[in-house]
């Protein structure tokens, strides 16, 4: 028996793996890995920028206190349609310019109407800001509600198994049977006039099914692990085991699928608004803006481009953040081979060759 030999090999492998993570707690490792993911870091800064711009641009009310916005127009203002500024005799075209003068452009400035004006002269920047506010709100509300329900149902059915599991999973099937877009349309059509928050709340009530299945699977495996047995032997209650022992281990998978859920939610709201079941006029969302102005694509394309650009930017950055989180939480992930690693390998090879 060469136990000691095997042990030493195992030890060397472990020690190789541990160089990077030595002396760090689980959350520190995750944070370190996440910060290393360039796409996710760019996205998170970008998303924060979008959120601050969008929410400070227009006047808002927080607990009854009026906070004035920094943008000069609101969505109700009706400034005159600007004539003669644009090429091709167009009316109300965007004044935003991002090409500096030394590159042959008009210089970097926002202008009077950076995103142009719509057909009756409303400032399109203000409209897009309001639309983005609504779409972001829908995204986060759906993410939060579906995330909580999905986690709780998945955790309970995965932990207790048996008949509780059967009942909860059949209930999940029951919700899955109804296609989301059908439920969304029925809700949007009949309750759309109650406001966006209400719509988002109801959509969240039906959006948790995929997450709950994932969480259940994770709990089914985790509850068989030694540390759960250890906790149980030490006399921990079920509640303590669920919240203190299993949930922290499943949090990676939960966060990742919630981010995916959120990027899906913004598209769901867009789709519903397009079908006419989402946000109701005079309120606007990014989806309702696009569907309202899709016919004018050939004549005034900016009415179509800007809301689309915002949808894509938001959804794309959420997706990238999710990808970064997945990489950070996945303990099995292979580390990306960097230039430095290649150099080290080269040096090592040379050293070996000289021997």
């Amino acid at each position, binding site marked *: 028996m060469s136990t000691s030999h095997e042990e030493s090999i195992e030890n060397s492998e472990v020690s190789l793996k541990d160089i990077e993570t030595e002396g760090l707690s689980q959350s520190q490792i995750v944070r370190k890995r996440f910060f290393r993911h360039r796409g996710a870091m760019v996205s998170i800064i970008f998303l924060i920028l979008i959120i601050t711009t969008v929410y400070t641009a227009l006047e808002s009310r927080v607990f009854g206190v009026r906070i004035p916005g920094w943008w000069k127009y609101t969505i109700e203002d009706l400034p005159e349609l600007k004539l003669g500024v644009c090429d091709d005799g167009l009316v109300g075209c965007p004044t935003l310019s991002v090409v500096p003068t030394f590159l042959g452009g008009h210089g970097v400035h926002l202008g009077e109407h950076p995103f142009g004006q719509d057909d009756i002269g409303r400032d399109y920047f203000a409209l897009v800001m309001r639309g983005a506010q609504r779409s972001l709100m829908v995204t986060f509300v759906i993410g939060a509600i579906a995330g909580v329900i999905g986690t709780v149902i998945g955790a309970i059915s995965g932990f207790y198994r048996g008949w509780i599991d059967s009942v909860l999973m059949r209930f999940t099937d029951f919700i899955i049977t109804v296609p989301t877009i059908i439920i969304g349309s029925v809700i949007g059509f009949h309750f759309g006039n109650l406001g966006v928050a209400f719509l988002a709340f109801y959509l969240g009530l039906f959006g948790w099914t995929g997450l709950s299945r994932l969480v259940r699977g994770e709990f089914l495996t985790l509850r068989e692990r030694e540390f759960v047995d250890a906790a149980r032997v030490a006399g921990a209650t079920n509640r303590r085991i669920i919240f203190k022992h299993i949930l922290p281990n499943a949090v990676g998978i939960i966060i990742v699928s919630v981010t995916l859920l959120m990027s899906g939610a913004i598209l769901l709201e867009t789709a519903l608004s397009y079908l006419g079941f989402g946000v109701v006029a005079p309120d606007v969302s990014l989806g309702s803006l*696009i569907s309202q102005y899709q016919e004018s694509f050939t004549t005034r394309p900016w009415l179509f481009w800007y809301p689309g650009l915002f949808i894509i930017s938001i959804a*794309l950055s959420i997706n990238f953040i999710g990808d970064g989180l997945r990489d950070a939480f996945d303990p099995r992930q292979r580390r990306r081979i960097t230039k430095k690693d290649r150099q080290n390998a080269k040096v090592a090879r040379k050293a070996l060759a000289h021997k």
Partner: protein
Amino acid sequence: MEDLGLLAFIMRRIGTLGVILFGSSFLLYNLAALSGDPLGELRISQDPRAKQIMISLTRELQLDVPPPLRYFLWLRGVLGLFVGKLDLGDTRAGESVATAIASAIPTTVRLVFTASILAMVLGISIGIITALRQYSKFDYAMTFVSFLLFSLPIFWVAVLLKQFMAIEFNNWLSAPTISPKALIAIGLVLSLIVSSVGGATGKKNYTIFASVFTGTVFTLWSLQKLNWFLEPGLGPIFYFFACVGIAYGVTQLSVGITNKTALRSSLVMAVAGLILYYPTRKAFTLDKQGLLIVAMAVLTVGLAVITSLVMAKIDRPAIVRTTVIAGFIMGLVRLLDQLMYTWPRFISTDAINYRPVPTVGQANSLLEPGDYWISTLDLLMHLILPTIALTAISFAGYIRFARGTMLEVLNQDYIRTARAKGLPERTVIMRHAFRNTLIPLSTIIVVDFAGIIGGAIITERVFGWKGMGTLFNSAINSFDLNLLMGVFFLTGTLALMANLVADLLYSALDPRIRTGSGA
């Protein structure tokens, strides 16, 4: 004994499926019925006949019965399924719901079938390539592209497609010249993609890059000089070259180029394709083309089997498989060539008038029926834009999933074993890794297929198709409860059945999973 267990498992699952369908249909019925007034518009109408219509509608749709009870009236009709007379009730227009759905299904299937197949094939192959070239430039580019596609609203894409793929393309076709700038741009993009997929480093990479670039630019330039875009076609010579290429490609992927018998057998098929080139062109002018094409497909497969059986003495199954796949693809290319051959006639018809890519609709009603190839081309042209939109949206998911699964499989011990015992990398990838990647993918595919029957609501609306999505949409807008429930009954049943099939498929494909255990 085990069969009995499986049977019991299936029966139990079908039983629960019934209960779930009952519950969710009850919920949806009441939700939809209680949240709106089907007579709302008539109540405020000034029309003197409004009252009359209200009375007759109330009687026909049994609106005097409260919804929870009315549900059971509806259910009685549905349960007629078991005695052979399914009754889904009537729509508000007086048509039978079953008829409305039956006429909508073929449209939806036509719309989503090609797109799903394309999305799966493209998505899975790109996903696997990105897994094999993990952390390469290609991998990063594809990750970005798939996230971008994930984030696109489909109707936004649709408007762009209509503008750039249809209107601008049709304009371009009136004088099809590619500017030198565009030529270089296309060449650069293509050669970048190929060289990053190739995964070679250093000098070899530059060689690949340069040759693909010059190849693309030269091909496009000569196609343009030959006026190919208005009168496309392969002709017998290029068809033969294409077949030889297919023979090499399929052999390489399936058994490896070193297997000379398989290669020779596929090359015989290519020669047969060349010999049959003109006879088939003659045959394509006969009547009953649909039947003829099926017969030709059967003949091709038969010929491939016979050829390979004659050529191969050992390792027959693998060689037969290779030859059949190669022969089948060659047949598809032959059909494509025939379509290209029809193209000049097609675009010069009055109905088309040199604007072949339509933005909306299912078929051109102005086109004279009769010519099989022209109407096929018309159908295909109407399919192009929705297919691109649907494929673009859904294949991103397959890329991510296939990549993840493949990476997981490649880390398994049996892959290390396969490599350690000296198998060529191609065999390791195609026989060991690829097949195991397909197990979880197959279950996703089944569920997706069921989902798309009712899922193309937005696409149908953007491109003006009249399928299931349109039915459902109008059902909600006009409070047509029977129609809504009919659509739901079909999509819900399909979704649940697909989940059951996926579970069974999983346990059939993967012996590690037993049906009896777990849910």
